[in-house]
């Protein structure tokens, strides 16, 4: 299926991402995954601070699919589980979100309001 390439403006308008969308995209950044794997990886990526229930997971998957940020792969005959992958728009959006977070961290650093690691 041909992917719609979302414009940068449209992507920027989606920022900041809601935690559920962010973690689902984050989990899929590595490789394509099925639903349960996404759920587990989100818990791991957030170090247990954020967990998705089945309904939240699939509500998010449905929304991201409709926005062309992720896409469903044609399932292999032997595996009934549906797998998902990031689209190029989804990847660009995730990158933009990380950049936004990075800029915020840099700002916090430059203002000296938060200290990270060995920073004085």
């Amino acid at each position, binding site marked *: 299926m041909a992917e719609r390439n979302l414009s940068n403006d449209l992507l920027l308008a989606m920022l900041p991402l809601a935690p559920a969308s962010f973690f689902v995209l984050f989990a899929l950044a590595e490789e394509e995954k099925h*639903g*349960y794997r996404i*759920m587990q990886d989100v818990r791991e990526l957030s170090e247990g601070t954020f*967990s*998705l*229930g*089945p*309904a*939240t*997971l*699939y*509500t998010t*998957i*449905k929304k991201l699919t409709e926005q062309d940020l992720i896409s469903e792969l044609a399932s292999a005959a032997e595996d009934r*589980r*549906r797998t998902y992958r990031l689209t190029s728009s989804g990847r660009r959006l995730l990158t933009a979100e990380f950049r936004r977070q990075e800029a915020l961290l840099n700002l916090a650093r430059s203002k000296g309001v938060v200290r990270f690691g060995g920073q004085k």
Partner: protein
Amino acid sequence: MNPVVRIYCCLFNWLLMFQSDDLIAHYGDDMRAIFREEIGRARSQGRSEVAKVWLDVLRETVVLLAPVWVARTNVVFAATCLASLLTIGSALGFCSLNAIPRVMACSKPEIAFQDKAQQSSEGSLVELPDGHHMFLECSGAASAKQTVILVTGRGLGTANSWSKVQQKVDPAIRVCSYDALGAGRSDRVEGNPQARPIDQVVADMHGLFQVARLTQPFVLVGASDGGLLSRKYQQKYPKEVAGLVFVDSSHEEMEWRDAAVAPQFDPNWNNPVFLRNNGFLPNHQKLTWSANIPLIDLERSEKAPASAFPGLTPEQVDAINVLWHDFQVDLSKRSNVGQLRVVSNSGHFMHVDQPGAVADAIRDVMQQI
């Protein structure tokens, strides 16, 4: 499957029913499969993990469904408000779903009676000296020596509300109806036309009749508050008016007399501006007007039901109805040749329900002139 897991799955399935049909149709099986896997993993890790899974499931059910519930509650709330408004509005006379017979004098903006023949008769816009245009529609013999004028500007509706009467009047009689300024096909005016002071409305009428060169003398026919308007006009221009027909007319003393039996009936009953602008008399002041000219007062036969006056006790409704009858008797005696006629099967909208009776009264007044 383990019976405990089976129970868990049934519970989850039940919670899932609250989610949107769309989500269930697309991902129902996936969600159930994931829950089964997740609860299996949690059970192997101990009770606290199982509790955590359930907590997540319950939390997401609330979080996902709360906006839907709020939206639905809003729709129900909005529908309730609308229904209440319509009920209260129609009960108090601000709006109506059909013509409800009422004792209370109404100021109805417009009652549309579509009548092609009426629309195509001699209606035209007349320019007043102040530049406003008023719609005037006359029928019957143009050579007649008097003009019957169906009064609007207070009371019920526009020229259209008189169309049935105008059709029933003997063609030998010249009869005119018009739209007051701010209503129907006449020019708009600033503010609510029903709040236009009655003296100004009388001046508009006079200007219209002059410019349109209506043949004097006039017989004025006023329904509801239109009765007050007719009397005001006669008082100001007595030489122009040769006869009067009151159609279930209001009375100048009604605000304070009604308030005496039901103080909650009209909150404006003691508001001097409201009273002055609408031609009602202040507390305890009596009507001095009289005119010894042919006059017929038509009274409704059907009394207003208690349901027409929410907030009033049955005794108060009875008292209001008795007062209304007294008003009609009083008005009929304001002329030494006055008559009172109770029109059978009629309510407050007598000129719509029984136009023939109004046309008969017009004919009888004309014969006495």
